[in-house]
């Protein structure tokens, strides 16, 4: 049995060692980055644009994607790109001009996709998931026809969408991610983290946006 003073000293030592605030691995770093993002954006004084901007930058910094964008549903029911990073100026101009209706989000003939969870869709380059003219929204449109040499390659034209919803389950926006830094498909863990971020973004924005 430990005496009172020695018990306190021993406890403090074990608490310091076990719970040292220095992150020990990539997962802890991500957890810290998300907590810090939430602390910054969970403020009604912040504009929607600055919330989207900070979220996009955090994802771009913390995950393996070079391209990140976020779309929101406007009051007219049309989804539009609000922020984007990792694209050329020409691509960005094309992105900002794209208007998507609710029907477009479900249109498998124009935008074929694979649902990898109830909030995430993967769009494969081979299926040409874009309308004529939207090729210019990609940074390297000439590479859109490149052959996938290995199934775990992430090609120009592959992209992933993470949907977020309001309280009535209506999609109010989505995060789009593409162009992994190592040229490979993202890990399952990355998808799960981004699904959490998307859902949180929905919780923060749902009362700011019309349903």
């Amino acid at each position, binding site marked *: 049995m430990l005496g009172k003073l020695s018990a*306190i000293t021993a406890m403090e030592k074990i608490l310091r060692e076990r719970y040292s605030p220095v992150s020990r691995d990539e997962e802890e770093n991500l*957890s810290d980055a998300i907590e810090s993002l*939430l602390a910054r954006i969970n403020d009604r004084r912040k504009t929607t644009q600055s919330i989207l901007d900070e979220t996009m930058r955090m994802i771009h910094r913390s995950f393996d994607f070079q391209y990140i964008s976020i779309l929101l549903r406007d009051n007219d029911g049309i989804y539009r790109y609000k922020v984007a990073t990792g694209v050329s100026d020409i691509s960005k101009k094309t992105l900002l001009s794209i208007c998507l209706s609710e029907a477009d989000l479900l249109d498998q003939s124009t935008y074929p996709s694979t649902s990898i969870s109830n909030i995430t869709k993967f769009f494969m380059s081979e299926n040409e998931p874009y309308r004529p003219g939207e090729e210019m929204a990609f940074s390297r449109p000439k590479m859109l026809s490149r052959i996938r040499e290995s199934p775990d390659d992430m090609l120009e034209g592959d992209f992933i969408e993470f949907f977020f919803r309001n309280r009535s389950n209506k999609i109010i926006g989505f995060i789009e991610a593409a162009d992994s830094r190592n040229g490979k498909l993202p890990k399952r863990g990355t998808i799960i983290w981004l699904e959490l971020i998307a859902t949180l973004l929905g919780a923060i924005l749902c009362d700011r946006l019309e349903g």
Partner: protein
Amino acid sequence: MAKKTKDYNQERFLLALYSQANRTPREESINEIRKFVEKCMKLDAQRKTVLDEAIRTILRMTEFKEIAISAKDIDGNFRFLAMSGFKKEAEAAMRAIVYTPADLMDHITFPAHRIGMVSEYCISEMNPYKPGEEATYNEPQLIGKPRSAPDDMMEGDYIDIYMDGPDKRHIGWIELSQTKTGKLPSRETIVWLELFVSCLSIILLNLPAGASA
């Protein structure tokens, strides 16, 4: 325009790669937080309902047996609004306590050891409670019992994890005590709880107008 056809081999590869069946415990624990947020958005959006759901999630995902959540009331003081794992008498004693914002900064009355960005560990031997608050423990007669090993989690030990609002002002905290093994919780548990608590803050601060306690 020709109909676009899917590459089904690649689709099968994707579905296998991202299959929900092969998730690691860590991936599953992150997904549990997402499911919690999603569920809270669909609840009747009352604060008490959200706090009760938070307690159920923590009980399911961690080794803690006693959980209480204190939140800021309209008078600016803090009260325990949701609890689990306490005897009737202890729960009644907890419900009667009112903490002022000054109490939250009072590290003389409530000495604590920081174990995370927003987490503190209160060691039983340092008597981290006001006189009279012994009644809030399930087994107050065990307070002061010598610790047999430094990694024991004893009656009287507890962990507070704070929920913050804008400008880092506390909007409440989760108090945890008594693990199933009687030992200190793992580092992973505290890391998970801090993320969970910061998501809970998001829910509480974004309850629809008119939501009540």
